[in-house]
Structure formats: C-alpha cells, structure tokens
C-alpha cells in the first residue's frame, strides 16, 4: 500500500504540487492523468523518495528493504551494457541474487528475450521499458510507480505493456501507480483514476465511475453506418469507418440493439473521453 497525504512542493518557478493526497491499495492499478507540467512527475518523485516534499508525508506499509520500485520519466539504463549486466549491477548493489538463474527469471518475468547479448542502446523503447520494469521489480517491491510508461510506444508495445502491468498487479499483488496523458491507454488498465491539474488533484474515482460520469460520446465502428436510421436520432459525426455518437452511457445498450436490428454489424463501441473533459467537468 502506498499513500501520500497532503503533499505540497514548490520550486523557484512556482508551486508544483498543492495539498495532493493519493492512495494505492495492494493489487490495484491507479492511474494519474494530467497534462504535461501538471505535477505528475514531481508527485512520482516524492512518492519514490527522490524528492522531499515541503509539506505532507508518504506512508508505505512495508517491511521490505525496497518498498517502492519505479521508472520516472524514462528507464534509466546503462546503455553500454547488455540487459543481463544491467540487471546484475542493479541487483548486485542491493544484495539481491545475481546468479544466472535469478537474472534470467527477472528477464523472463517482463518478457525480455534471453538471447539478446548486445548493449541496451540497440533495444527498442518497448524493450527498454520492460527492462526498466525488471529493474524496478528487483528485490520484490510492494509498490510500483511508472511515469509515462506508454510514451513513445507503438500500439502493439502499449498493449503488451498493459498486459504486463495487469499481470503484475493480479499475480504479484503489487500496488501500481502509473501516469499518462493518454486517456485510452490508462482507462484500459486502471481500477482507479486521479486527475491532476496545476499541481492539484481535481478529479478522482474508479475508472468506471469517472467514465460513466463524464462520458458524453462513443465511437462506434461498423459498416454502412451512414445509412443507419437509428443514428438519425442522435448528434453524430460520421468518420471513414466509424461514427462518433453523442449520448449518455445509459443509452448505449438500446442504441446497439437498434443498430443490430437494422442489420448493422457493430464491431466496436468505445467511450470517447478526453482529459480535457475530466478536467473541465471537475472545474
């Protein structure tokens, strides 16, 4: 469990965090949404103990030698070393096992291949993120903090990383906090969301609650959508392969049923929720 209470931090450029409280229970994935410069990284650094807050406190209920592992901004790796040696160094300095079997298990846990012996500077960003997570997981921390883990990844990389994060929370009961400004990705894997704006938490709730409370439109993917009579009842923006329909979440089951009755094969229906909506609604 990781809890930050009434955290505040100011720099010469201004207030980065203002009375922020956050709680991540074990086995839960919490998302922190915010624009660039909203205070996400400062909060992460405080939670990880890299930066001291001006006010407030971080409570970590853990008796382990390393309660929190994480990646802040980007995975900091020794680019001239291979993945194996990177793990060996970071495990070695804290007395974690550095034998071949232990290092290979750590690499396999995050889905990294064992046959890559070249320096990590040759790795893709996705592989570097995985290696960063592998290093963060050394010594079995109870909490994992991932700052912008999806940044720069292709859709396959994002999907694969989401699956890894879910697995870590479910199978290892790790409390995970991750940040992003990408609504779609974060809403796919988080149980709980916090929205931060100008150093303050402006909105929070379970992912479903927030989506239900703030969603105003849905993206429906199907063929022949332009000819659908059902959609004429709604405000619709027709795209090449989809239509953006403005409606309440409660209207969706009926809408889909009517579309099916019309013979339109719906292949996807996803809520369209932007960060701006979450921030605006809160204000």
């Amino acid at each position, binding site marked *: 469990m990781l809890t930050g209470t009434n955290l505040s931090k100011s720099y010469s450029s201004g207030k980065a965090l203002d009375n922020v409280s956050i709680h991540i229970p074990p086995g839960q994935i919490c998302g922190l949404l915010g624009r660039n410069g909203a205070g996400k*990284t400062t909060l992460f*650094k405080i939670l*990880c*103990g*890299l*930066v*001291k807050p001006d006010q407030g406190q971080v409570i970590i209920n853990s008796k382990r*030698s*390393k309660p*929190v*592992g*994480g*990646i*802040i*901004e*980007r*995975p*900091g*790796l*020794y*680019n*001239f*070393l291979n993945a194996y*040696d990177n793990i*060996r*160094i*970071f495990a*070695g*300095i*804290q*007395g974690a096992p550095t034998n071949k079997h232990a290092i290979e298990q750590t690499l396999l846990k995050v889905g990294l291949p064992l046959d890559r012996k070249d320096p990590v500077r040759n790795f893709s960003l996705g592989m570097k993120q995985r290696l*960063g997570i592998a*290093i*963060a997981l*050394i*010594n079995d921390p109870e909490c994992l903090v991932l700052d912008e883990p999806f940044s720069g990844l292709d859709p396959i990389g994002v999907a694969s990383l989401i699956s890894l994060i879910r697995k870590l929370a479910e199978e290892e009961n790790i409390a995970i906090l991750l940040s992003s400004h990408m609504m779609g990705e974060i809403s796919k894997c988080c149980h709980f969301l916090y929205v931060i704006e100008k150093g303050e938490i402006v909105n929070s709730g379970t992912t479903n609650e927030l989506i239900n409370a703030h969603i105003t439109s849905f993206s429906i993917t199907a063929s022949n959508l332009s000819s659908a009579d059902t959609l004429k009842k709604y405000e619709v923006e027709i795209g090449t392969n989809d239509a953006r329909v403005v409606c309440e979440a409660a209207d969706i089951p009926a809408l889909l049923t009517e579309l099916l009755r019309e013979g339109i094969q719906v292949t996807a229906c996803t809520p369209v929720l932007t960060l701006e909506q979450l921030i605006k609604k809160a204000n």
Partner: protein
Amino acid sequence: MRLLLSAELLKLVKQSKTYYALGSIMVIETLILITAYFQGSTILDLLLDNLKQSFYFEGTLLNGNLIMYIVLNSLWFNVPLILMIVTSGIVTDEYKDGTMQTLMLQAVDKWKVITAKYIVAVLFTLLVIGFMMLTTFILSYSIFGSGDLVVYINTLNFFEADDAFHRICWAFASGALTMIFYCVASMTLAIFIREAAKTWIAAALFLIITTLLLKVDFVVPVINTYFFPKLIDTWQQLFYYRLDWNQIFINNAILILYTLLFAAAGTYVFHKKDIG
C-alpha cells in the same frame, strides 16, 4: 559497500571512455617523450655551457632519468585534465542517462553510492598513474638508458643514478596524491553542477586557477605554505638537493586532508540534494 564498489568497477571496465583515457595518456606520454629528447639536449646545452668550460662531464646526462624528470614536469597539467573529465563523468553520466534516479530507486544508501564512486575515482587515478609510471620507466630506460640526473631548481642539482631513480619514484607517489586531489575535486564539482559540459569547464578552470595560484605570493606565511594550490607541486621538493622529508610528509598529509574535505562536502551535498 563491497557490492557497490564491484558494480562501479564493472561500469568503469565496460565503458569505452576508460580506454580512450588510457590511450590518450599514452599518446601524450609518447609525444612528451619525443619532445623531451630534443628539449633535453637544448636545456642541457644551455645549463651546462659555462660549466663545461671548467669541468669535465663523464657519460651522457641526456638519459632515462632526465627524460623521466621532463615527462614528470610536463604531465602534471595534461593528465589531471583527462582524469578530471573521466572521473567527473562517473557522476555526470549517471545524471545524463537517468541511471542516478534508477540507482536511488533501489534499496541502497545515498552516502554509500557516492562514497563508492569517490573510491572508484581514486582507484582509477592510481591505476592511471601506475600505468603512466610503468610505461614512462620502460620507454625512458629502454631508449635512453640510466645515468646521473641534473635538474635546475633555483640552482643546478646533480643526483647519482640510483638516488635519482628513488627520487623519481617518490615524485610519482607524491604526484599521485595531487592527481587524487584533482579527481576528488572534479567529482565534487560534478555533484554540485550535475551537467557534464559545465563540470568540464569548471574542472578545467579549477585546474588553471590552482596552477596560477601556485605562483602567487599570499604574503601570509601560513597561506603560502598550507593553502591547497601551494601543495600541488610538493613532488618538486623531491628534487631539492637536501630532502626535507618532514615538510614533504606534512604537505602531502594536508593535501590528503583537503581531499577528504572535498569528498565530505560532495557526500554531504549529494545526501541533502533531491535527485531529479
């Protein structure tokens, strides 16, 4: 601490810039050796021109010992510069690559991390000086042979070959302490500044200023004797005709104290400062 030290050593060994540093010192050394040969002949001709009219000199004075002495004189500016760049990189590279954050996110004490870095910087300095000493000895003696040493410090001093050899060995040892002082100072600067290019400029400035202050008369005798820029050329005292071992020991002991002070200041600041 042992684990941190072995990790730091592994990083140093695996980095190509370590070998670039050793290579560049070898290049500088070879160039100095070549110029020392020609410079040595000219210096000897100038110094001994009058004496040759009154005295008869047996054997050649342009020998391995004189070349070693000239190499010693020439290296004490170039080598610290390279060493300062490499050792400050032990800290600045970690900030640049984000590995300092990753290190601090592990179950390790901050002070232990930075102490391990200081120790590795000192070990690397000793390795470089040892390497430099060994290669200079081999090259100088194999090419120019042994012989008596003539040096000019206020007056002409002549040392027999064996005595000269011992003095040169001790000069390297004393010079190594000066190098360690510069490396520790550059690491401390790196902790304060964090950025590589800015640290290099600050380190070069530090080296130039200390070299300039060495010649400045501060009027107050205590400052003239014990201010750190006045201690960086203690190795020269090993070529005075009458050796004052007591003074050499005190100077080096005080320089070690200054080194520890710089390291303590760096460790304190690193411990207090936020990472990132």
